[in-house]
Structure formats: structure tokens, C-alpha cells
């Protein structure tokens, strides 16, 4: 079975992002970039399935700028993915709907039976691409996975939801998005990094795939979260209720 793993290039989790002077986005020049941590978890899960003999080929798919081939090579390919596909777009953070449409075209070309994605990207926290893709493909989805079990032509996903754990069993082909507690991604070894440099990354563009990537949303303004203001202390419950009524909260 062939598996796709979605890998997004994001600002490294340890970096403190700064808003650009135009207030339209975040500064990415000279900033350290990495593979989205949830996507690394997805790669690790695919590798585990390959080690069990269930998945035969892992294709790491990135929709991002061409410089992303560095992260693809040193991340998923060095961890053990077989090859990569880089769909080149000029800017960093693409709209989830457009990314899902690109994946839809690639799936039609490559026919993977399992698509693993990180549950969300740490830059936009959207948590949408997997779900939108499932809708476009009319495939079942198991999102926020903390456990993945494969059976003959089926995948069972234990999902972390607000009220606890929910288990779903789906027929393949299916979409799975991976959550934090699913696994601990392995470190790439130096030998595997050297091997990864020889693996192929097929490069294409949304245009080549027949996807109109013109943005449908325009970011008007981006601001830092407002500084938390000091609160006040009240002596009695009546005072508290009075204040809440005064501010129109209740």
C-alpha cells in the first residue's frame, strides 16, 4: 500500500515570530524553518506501518516554497520516507482549501490508500486541511488520532476529542490526521541524512496540476494579542455580580 504524508514547512516552534511592518503577516526571512511537528508525528506513524509491512511506499508531500526541499530532505526523507513531492508555491502559508485541492489532484495521480496529515499546522492552527480533503475525496476521516491500528482494508483510529476518546473504524482509502500523543518521532541518523540526499523530490506547481491557486482570502491585518490588562478584586459575590452586569457580561 502507498501512503501519502503531508509535510508543511513552518517557522520553527522555538522561534518567537514577529509581525511584519505592514501588519499583513509574519516575518519569515532569515527565520529558522522546520517541518510542522504534527507532520513529523504523521511521518513516524507511516514509518511504523512500513516497518510492520503494511505500507510499502511512503511519499512525503509538501506544498510550499522551493527552499522547502531542504526540510523535506533532512526531515521526512531522512527519517525514512521513500520519496518526496514538492508542489511549489511562492508564499509560505497557503490556504487549507487550496492545499486540499492540490492533494486531491496528487491522489488522483498516485492512488495512495492512506493519507496521513498532522492535525494542524503550528503557524495558522487551522486544523482544516485533512477534513476538507476528506470532503473533496468523499473519503472517511479519523482526525486528532492518538492511536492508529490497521486491519485488512480498514483503519481504526482512536481520536482525542474534548469529552475523551472516540474510536472510529474506516474502510480504506481514508484520511488520518495525527495528534501529539500518537507517537514520538525518531531522530534522523547521519547515515540516513546522507541517503536522503540521493532520494528523489519530484517538483511541480499547482498550475501543472490544474489547480487555481489564486488566494480567495486576503489578510487585512495581523496584530499581536493585546496585552493583558490588570483585573480588580471584589469583596463579595454581590459585588462580582454587580460588575458582571455593569460590563454587560450577564
Amino acid at each position, binding site marked *: 500500500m502507498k501512503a501519502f504524508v503531508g509535510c508543511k514547512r513552518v517557522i520553527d516552534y522555538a522561534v518567537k515570530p514577529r509581525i511584519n511592518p505592514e501588519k499583513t503577516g509574519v516575518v519569515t526571512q532569515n527565520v*529558522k524553518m522546520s517541518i510542522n511537528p504534527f507532520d513529523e508525528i504523521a511521518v513516524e506513524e507511516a514509518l511504523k506501518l512500513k516497518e510492520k509491512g503494511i505500507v510499502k511506499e511512503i511519499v512525503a508531500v509538501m506544498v510550499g516554497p522551493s527552499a522547502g526541499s531542504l526540510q523535506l530532505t533532512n526531515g521526512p526523507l531522512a527519517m525514512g520516507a521513500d520519496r518526496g513531492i514538492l508542489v511549489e508555491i511562492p508564499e509560505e502559508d497557503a490556504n487549507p482549501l487550496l492545499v486540499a485541492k492540490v492533494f486531491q489532484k496528487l491522489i488522483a495521480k498516485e492512488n495512495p490508500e492512506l493519507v496521513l496529515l498532522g492535525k494542524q499546522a503550528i503557524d495558522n492552527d487551522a486544523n482544516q486541511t485533512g477534513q476538507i480533503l476528506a470532503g473533496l475525496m468523499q473519503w472517511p476521516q479519523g482526525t486528532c488520532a492518538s492511536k492508529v491500528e490497521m486491519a485488512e482494508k480498514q483503519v481504526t483510529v482512536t481520536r482525542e476529542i474534548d469529552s475523551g476518546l472516540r474510536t472510529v473504524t474506516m474502510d480504506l482509502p481514508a484520511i488520518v490526521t495525527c495528534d501529539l500523543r500518537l507517537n514520538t518521532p525518531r*531522530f534522523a541518523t547521519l*547515515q540516513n541524512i546522507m541517503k536522503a540526499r540521493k532520494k528523489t523530490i519530484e517538483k511541480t506547481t499547482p498550475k501543472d496540476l490544474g489547480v487555481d491557486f489564486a488566494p480567495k482570502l486576503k489578510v487585512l491585518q495581523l496584530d499581536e494579542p493585546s496585552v493583558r490588562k490588570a483585573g480588580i478584586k471584589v469583596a463579595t459575590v454581590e459585588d462580582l455580580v454587580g460588575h458582571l452586569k455593569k460590563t454587560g457580561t450577564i
Partner: protein
Amino acid sequence: TTGRSMAFANFQRSFQLAKNHKTSSFSRGYATEAKPMRALTDFSDEENELRSLVAKFAKEKIGPKVREMDEKSQLDPEVLSGLFEQGFMGIETPTELDGSGMSFTDAIIVIEELAKVDPAVSVVCDVQNTLVNNILSNWGTKEQREKYSRQLAQNTVGSFCLSEWGSGSDAFALKTKADLQSDGSYILNGSKAWITNSGEAGIFLVMANADVSKGYKGITTFLVPKGTPGLQVGKKEDKLGIRASSTCEVLFNDVRVPKDQIVGPVGSGYKIAIETLNEGRIGIAAQMLGLAGGAFEATLPYIYQRKQFGKPIGTFQGMQFQVAQIAMDIEAAKLMTYNAARLKDAKQPFTKEAAMCKLFASQVAEKVSSLCINMLGGVGFTKDFPAEKFFRDCKIGQIYEGTSNIQMQTIAKLIERENGLDTKTTQHK
């Protein structure tokens, strides 16, 4: 003209003559259109990715165990196996021999990043790569590399046995003897001291004298696997710093070494030792650089959190001046270390630069780690903060692989030679 001014004129002339003979370091620096010169801090994307990987591995897999390893004076077996699994123990070894197939500069990056977390773990990796692996790759036969380089890259720690109780700086006064037998093998007798990695080593590269009548030109390099009858690892030193790195005596009692386990020609041991230690110096510089960086990284955030007199102490000008000094010293040590590494990778002479960067980086490590404890105040003096360990660890940098005094002497001699002032050149009149 008086005798004195004539002597000065003569001196100036021979100085110029000698200078013109050598390619001094200045001539390497000019840019041409065909060869744009890069900044010393211009690392490739792959080198930066390697650095991030090692930093992350060190922080997650080694960081939590540093204090315990130091207290127990014991390298954690999982940390050691982690170094092997990651390919950190055979960085330059070719992939055909199960190594990582990378460059010397890559090895320096790994050593530096490991040292930022634990200089003791860093030296384990440094000795393996810059001393043991290098000797085999530069001097070993094809068969020796096939067998031993592979093991060293995959699962076997190596030790470099040169020093003895009676010979440290005066290394070639070593007394361990190798007696030739009729079948070409040698019998080794003697004892080595201060041997790094010996507690974990499975392979020992031993310098012993095979022909005392030739003085230091009889010194030969022997490869002795652990378990060879007569080889015994003695007591572990109870050290001030880098405690997790084992430093033990190694005793040789009628140890038989077959002739195919001699590395390099008989009598070339002194040459092997000198050339290997030259390269090893850059590794130690990287360890000391990482140490200074680690101490600084642990201190800087704290001084901006700790408030006294209503402000973070890092905003006081006196502290700011100290921060600037530390950052500048680390930058200088970094440039010297990586320049030496690049020179080696470019197969250009690097002996002087290697001695300089080791000397300088070890001095910076002491200065920075000491100052960091001052800046942290009381908490810096406790084991709960990493600063005191960096301070204890720094001292060895000025001692092993050539003491600071030896480095200064080496540098001075090279300056003499560069300027035609050494006795060999001046005697030409």
C-alpha cells in the same frame, strides 16, 4: 654605519628573504572573480540542519541525564548507544564502512553542539572521531579499516593510549615497550595513564616503543582489542570535571599483538601521534566553544528574569558590558575554530591555527563559565543550575591534548619558522 645598525640591516634583510620563501597566511585571503570568499560563519544549509538535529538530540536525549552522569561519574549506556545510532561515532568514516560519510567540519559541528549540553559526552565523540577514527583512516591498511573502522562507527568505543605516569607533555619519553617476536608479532609491556574512553573502549590504539635504541623513532602504533590477554583497564580517575567521560589507567602485561595489528609503519608512531593530535586540537576547541556557549545560553535568559532594585539585572550596564565581552569572546573562538576546520577540509596547512584555536577556546571557556556563575549569583553556585558543571568541566581544556604552555610553545616555534628565525633557517648564512 655602526655595528649595531648593520646588524639590524642584516636582520631585516634575512627576515624579508625568509618571509618571501613561505606562503604566509595572508596570501590566502584575496578574493578573485572565480573564487568569491565567504564569511567564516557562512555555513551551508545542510550544515545548519545538522546543527539543529544534534542540538535537538542533545537537549532531549542527553540533557535529562547530565546531572546524574556527572554525580555518578558514569556515562549512561543509553546515551552511548544513542551516539552510535545517530551516526555520531563514525562521522567521517565512509558509508561503505557503515559510517556517516561526512566532513571534518561536520564532526566539529557535532562536537560543539554536544558540548553545549554536556562537554563530557562531547569528548567521548571527539576522541572517537578526531583521534581514533582518523588514525585508522589516515594510516590503517584496507583490511584494518574494513574490520575496525566499521566496528568503531557502529558499536565499539575506541581509546588513544599515549600518555603515561611519567610522560605527559614529554610524550615521547614513554616507556611502554614492544618486543619483537620471531613470528613478527610484538609483546607489549607497560602502563598508560589518563586514557579517555578507556572505561567503555573495545579497541585501544597504543603507542609503544618497538626499538628503544632509536629513541622516539622507535615508537609504533599498535591496535589492541579489549579482551586480549594481559590488557587490563585499571582504576577510573575521580575527576573535577567531565566526570561522565571515563579516564583510566590501561595496563599491558605481556600483551601479544599480531603484526597485522600494527597501524602505519614500525617507528612512525611519533609522527602519527603528532599529526593526529594536531587535528584533535580543533575538536577540543569545538568542545570548549560549545561549553562556553552552553554556559552563556543558560545564563542570559536568567539575568533578564531575575529582578533586583526593580529591574531585571541584565539591564544594568555593568552586566551588559559583561554580556558583550562574553559574546565577543565566543564569537572570536567560533571563528578561529571553524576557520581551522575549513582549512583542514580544504587540505591546507592548519597546524598553527589548530594550536591557536584550542588554546584560545579553552581560555574563553574558563573565562566565560566563571563569569556566568558570577552573573547568576547564588543559584549559579548550586548544582541545580548547569553553570557550576560547565566551570568544573572547562579546566581540562587547558590540559589535555597539549597543555596551554605546550600550545604556546608550538605556536611560537611556528612563528619562528614562518619568519625564518628558527635555527634551521638562520644557519644558512
